[in-house]
């Protein structure tokens, strides 16, 4: 450990200040300004007036049904996505770190979806869920599976989970791979010699040492899912009937669709606080379980 002696303070500053400076000007200060804006009524156009309204926006949003519904849907979406993305990502990473000849190719293939930006992804999948599914439904007759997922509220949400998973599984996969690579082979060897089977090796050796990766992946999936916007916009546009208007889209519509800038900001602050509480708790817990060796 480095104790913060006088000379070490200098080093501390040298190592951290440059990034902190950029970070503060680009993220922290705008965020604080944004908090300030949540207390005004404004339409977002610089030349138009800002009217201070105190806590009105906050009171307003508690009465906003659509906001509350969208928050609930976002939570639903996030929980599903969290599980699916990480299970798949972990499974892929385990499969891919086995010494199979096609491991390299497979790893690239699983990661490919992540290379496509969110907007286009949404358009391609929209096409799949509408036209392709209809086509498959006609051909195979399985129309309990192959109908247009996007025009029914519940299945539209599932469609979003699928698209998000498709995009993110590879992402978490490579983080898990980095973690798995960091586990020395001797440990696995020693355990096998001791008679441990695959499942025991996984749960007693791999998973605990993979804790840093879990911290990261759980957190990334959580934050990615809560903030989802591009795919939301291009896949469902929030429909049908706002059933898939997730949180970031609700704010966006409030700010740019309706022109209620202050209200939109207030919503953002509220949700940020809630989500931060949940995810920071997660990070602190899993960080404590990380092993330094």
């Amino acid at each position, binding site marked *: *450990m*480095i104790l*913060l002696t006088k000379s070490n303070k200098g*080093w*501390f500053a040298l*190592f*951290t200040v440059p*990034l902190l400076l*950029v*970070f503060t*000007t*680009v*993220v922290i200060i*705008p*965020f604080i*300004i*944004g908090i300030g*804006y949540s207390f005004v009524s404004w339409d977002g156009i610089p030349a138009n007036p800002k009217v201070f309204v105190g806590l009105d926006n906050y009171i307003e949003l508690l009465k906003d049904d659509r906001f509350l519904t969208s928050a609930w849907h976002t939570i639903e979406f996030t929980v599903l996505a969290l599980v699916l993305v990480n299970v798949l990502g972990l499974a892929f990473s385990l*499969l891919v770190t086995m*010494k*199979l000849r*096609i*491991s*390299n190719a*497979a*790893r*690239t*293939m699983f*990661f490919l979806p992540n*290379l*496509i*930006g*969110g907007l*286009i*992804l949404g358009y*391609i999948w929209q*096409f*799949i869920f509408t036209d*392709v599914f209809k086509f498959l439904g006609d051909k195979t007759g399985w129309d309990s599976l192959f109908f247009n997922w996007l025009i029914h509220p519940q299945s539209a949400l599932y469609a979003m989970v699928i698209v998000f998973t*498709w995009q993110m599984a590879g992402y978490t996969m*490579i*983080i898990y791979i980095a973690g798995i690579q960091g586990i020395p*082979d001797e440990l*696995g*060897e020693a355990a096998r010699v001791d008679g441990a089977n695959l499942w025991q090796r996984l749960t007693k050796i791999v998973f605990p040492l993979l804790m*840093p990766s879990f911290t*990261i992946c759980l957190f990334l999936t959580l934050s990615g899912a*809560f*903030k989802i*916007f591009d795919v939301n916009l291009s896949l469902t546009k929030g429909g049908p009937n706002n059933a898939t208007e997730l949180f970031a889209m609700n704010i*966006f519509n409030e*700010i740019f669709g309706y022109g209620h800038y202050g209200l*939109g*900001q207030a919503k*953002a602050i509220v949700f940020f606080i809630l*989500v931060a509480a949940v995810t*920071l708790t997660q*990070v602190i817990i899993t960080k404590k379980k*990380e092993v330094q*060796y």
Partner: protein
Amino acid sequence: MNRTSRMSASTLLILLALAFLSPIYLMLVNSFKDRAELYKSALALPKSFSFQYYSKAMEKMSFATAFGNSLFITVVSVIFVVVLASMTAWMLVRTDNKLSQIIFLTFVSTMLIPFQTLMMPLMQVMDWIRGTLHIPMLNTRGGLIYMNVGFHASMAVFLYHGFIKSVPVALEEAATLDGCSKFGVFWRIVFPMLKTITITVAILDVIAMWNDYLLPSLTLSDKALRTIPLSTFYFFGEFTIQWNLAMAGLTLTIIPVVVFYMFAQKYIIKGIAAGAVK
């Protein structure tokens, strides 16, 4: 692992991977069709594999310029992120006090902020910097690089933070005893051991920045500065998309990233060839 379980694992893997890639097949196949053909069947292979839409897309996008811009911005941004974030994360991990924890949690928590809420205030801040400090932050590539670093700092610090624990403190202490300054310890001992996570951060950031549409669209205005995603706007009309050009444009956009990924991932492979048989 015995032979049959290998075979079945391999087969499973291949099937999964192919199913996984079917949307990409769609994207490629439709970059060769015109609207009428696409309407008739979006799944079928195209009548002809002429690259006319690719050359048309490249021309409309001013591909060479756009590519140069994207490349410059992405590479410089990623280098800064990697260098600054690794330094910051290391110092935070090794200095175990309240301040470090607070800084770390601040980084982490800002990852939850949706960009939409920062957009407008960010523009104001950049405008203020330009007006008061006379540093051009908008409509310049340097400004975009600065903002990229700011936005990707959190994630990089977060990733590095987790992996620094895999660097044995003993090595660092030994180096310090040998007379290395903090700088030396970090660059000679620690950073080389972070190779895997550095490549991972680089890959994730390259992809994010290369594909980024929103931030560059707000900060870059001139045609000569456009990155590749910005240059594809021609194909996305208000009600409809010129699918063939858009898909061709998209393919052109991701080819460099795929190449980079294939090249970079070699460095993540450790011991797959030399490792023990599981």
